[in-house]
């Protein structure tokens, strides 16, 4: 079984400040790792994913996450946030076996203000 812990339920930051959203996971098997973003009143969009290879993965809008196997973490970072980054961010894990579902953390609300 897998579980995901997002350590911060809410993260308020000012525009252009750096941000880190923390995610730790627990699993007895190898997993894939994901960050999804949910903008207000919308569905979920994949932000980035770690499947294998380089432990640092990047998204097209400036976010990055680093897989740390020893600490079982997959923290999300952005060096300078915009107001448009205000959203709910979900960390998720998935058993590498086909047909298994995503296990989500409880989400972190990122609020960016000017």
């Amino acid at each position, binding site marked *: 079984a897998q579980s995901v812990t997002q350590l911060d339920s809410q993260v308020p930051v000012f525009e252009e400040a750096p941000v880190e959203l923390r995610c730790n996971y627990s699993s007895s098997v190898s997993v894939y790792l994901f960050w999804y973003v949910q903008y207000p009143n919308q569905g*979920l969009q*994949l932000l980035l994913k770690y499947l294998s290879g380089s432990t640092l993965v990047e998204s097209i809008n400036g976010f990055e996450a680093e897989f740390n196997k020893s600490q079982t973490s997959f923290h999300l970072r952005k060096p300078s946030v915009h107001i448009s980054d205000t959203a709910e961010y979900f960390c998720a894990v998935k058993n590498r076996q086909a*047909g298994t579902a*995503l296990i989500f953390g409880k989400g972190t609300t990122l609020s960016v203000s000017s």
Partner: protein
Amino acid sequence: DTAVSQTPKYLVTQMGNDKSIKCEQNLGHDTMYWYKQDSKKFLKIMFSYNNKELIINETVPNRFSPKSPDKAHLNLHINSLELGDSAVYFCASSQDSSGKQYFGPGTRLTVL
């Protein structure tokens, strides 16, 4: 074209009623899912179908019955609706074991 679509987007109904939510994906994916997002925004898997066959059935009341007429559709029927069923229900699909899932826009169900 929308990759994963759901209808309706909003559904308001009385306790005790039976309702259905429909999901369609035009991505050619083999696997489809239903997730429930509660009022605290917590997302949890309910069901998963692969090529019309049920492969995941989490601890969900048997009032919820998924139906997959073909691999592009996964509908969710709910009998005897209860107040606690109020939530946003998301459909998703994926093709391979890597896990990238495409989500629909969600259906906000409100039971009065």
